């Protein structure tokens, strides 16, 4: 049975936040019809963390693009491939970490690059959207096959202040 990468290693790999289980951990099939519910989940999770409406729109877009790439390139549009998504809330200074893993076709991470937007043509925009939206994004091959994509987004200073203010108002007697 497949075990998500973070469990295989026995702990979450990062120096930036507490090593702990993700807040949300889900498994889905590589079916494009499942993109909409995942977007809704990302939107709600990011809202709870304190991201603005505009940032949430871009975060849902970035995750959608990441999943679409797995479906299109990793599983070549087969609907029965497996994808795992783990969501962490990052406490300080506030943000989210999302890790996607799949068992599809591996790609050399060095080949995953944004394309030149001056070259106007349909397609190839997903990686650009991911890199432009996220604070950090990194692809790596999984031992045993498939890919692992780690996405991190930190709250902006304005979002942090608004989130702190909102929490303060909610805890006021």
């Amino acid at each position: 049975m497949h075990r998500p990468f973070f469990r295989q290693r026995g702990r979450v790999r990062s120096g930036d936040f507490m090593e702990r289980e993700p807040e949300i951990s889900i498994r889905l099939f590589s079916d494009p019809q499942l993109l909409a519910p995942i977007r809704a989940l990302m939107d709600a999770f990011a809202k709870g963390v304190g991201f603005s409406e505009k940032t949430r729109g871009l975060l849902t877009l970035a995750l959608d693009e990441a999943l679409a790439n797995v479906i299109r390139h990793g599983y070549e549009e087969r609907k029965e491939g497996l994808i795992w998504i783990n969501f962490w809330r990052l406490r300080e200074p506030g943000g989210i970490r999302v890790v996607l893993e799949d068992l599809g076709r591996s790609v050399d991470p060095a080949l995953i690059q944004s394309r030149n937007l001056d070259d106007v043509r349909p397609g190839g925009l997903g990686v650009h959207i991911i890199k432009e939206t996220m604070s950090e994004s990194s692809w790596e091959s999984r031992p045993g096959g498939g890919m692992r994509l780690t996405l991190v987004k930190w709250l902006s200073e304005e979002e942090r202040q608004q989130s702190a203010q909102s929490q303060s108002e909610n805890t006021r007697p």
Partner: protein
Amino acid sequence: MNQELVVEQSSIGDAIVLRPSGDIDMSRASSIRKAVAEAMRAQPARLIMDLSHVAYMDSSGLATLVEALQHAMRSKVKFILVGITPRVKSAFEITKLTGLFTIATTVEEATKA
């Protein structure tokens, strides 16, 4: 679960107006492609894509619009976008596609663009 994207079609003068309703992602972008191809067969002077009922669009949708624009330019048809919602606007902005399209605020304005 995701349903088929509904794309209404109507005519105003020499223009055909396409009005998709719902999110446009990789599971539904082909509905736009089909609707554009069908509309272009009627050889209108202008093709207006009313996006006021589209709350979300990913790069598949954007790619379909770029294809539609290129098809329209080859056929000497004016292709105009209308009613871009905030999240769709963000998708256009992050991909720097905004300047590529003629964008109008209302369908009426688009018929005169």
